């Protein structure tokens, strides 16, 4: 990915995560109402506490993206977080946009994943039989 494109994507997604975290902190229960009933019944904590935790996670992810630190960790956590959001609230006219944000986070993850980790998962060539 082009460096400029990477920085625009990183900062844009960082601001999005930071701001959504702050908006959720403002009205955690209202945001909790998007969660489907079958999920609410499974939750071990009150919905307000879950949403406040979510908001804090979003703010941490956003800040890490913004300061260009541990981007690959922030990106994969953010992408998986969005997978969970889509599962627990379903794909609605509001959450459909999360698909795009999730794709952006996966793109950032793919771009910033350290080479040392990539090498671990690369298949080593099998030596030829004599």
């Amino acid at each position, binding site marked *: 990915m082009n460096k400029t494109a990477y920085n625009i994507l990183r*900062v844009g997604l*960082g*601001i999005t995560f*930071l701001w959504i975290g*702050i908006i959720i*902190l403002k009205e955690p229960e209202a945001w909790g109402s998007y969660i489907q009933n079958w999920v609410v019944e499974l939750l071990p904590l009150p919905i307000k506490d879950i949403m406040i935790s979510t908001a804090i996670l979003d703010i941490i992810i956003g800040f890490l993206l*913004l300061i*260009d630190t541990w981007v690959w960790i922030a990106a994969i956590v953010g992408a998986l977080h969005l997978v969970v959001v889509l599962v627990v609230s379903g794909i609605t006219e509001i959450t459909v946009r999360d698909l795009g944000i999730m794709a952006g986070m996966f793109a950032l993850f793919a771009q910033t994943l350290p080479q040392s980790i990539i090498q671990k998962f690369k298949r080593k060539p099998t030596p030829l039989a004599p």
Partner: protein
Amino acid sequence: MTALTLLFTLASIGISETVYLIRTREKAELPVCPIGEGCAVVLTSRWSKILIIPNDVMGFLAYIAIAFMSALLLIEVEPTALFSLALKILVGFASLASIFFTYLQARVIRAWCFWCLMSACTIWLMGLIIIFSKTI
């Protein structure tokens, strides 16, 4: 809410920009200068520090404070009147500092730095938002 959203977004862009400048300075690298060629001249001049604190660090702290206060105002954490006043004072002071730094580039250093001008425009835009906003 729109004004606070804009302030927060601009402050976030400022945080990202100042972190980039701090990183490149610490690595003793020259920043990429997207427009013009004066970034290195300005950022390595004797005016790049006030006393012992580099301007990029001052900017970073100012943007963090602005983002933090915008967020607190949106969540309506008390005392909102105090946060609102502090935000106005900080943006006002930063606007004046930006005028001074722009003057230095034009008249003293005689070189233009893209990142410094971008930061100045960000701060002035924040000032305009506060002036025209009815909610802050």
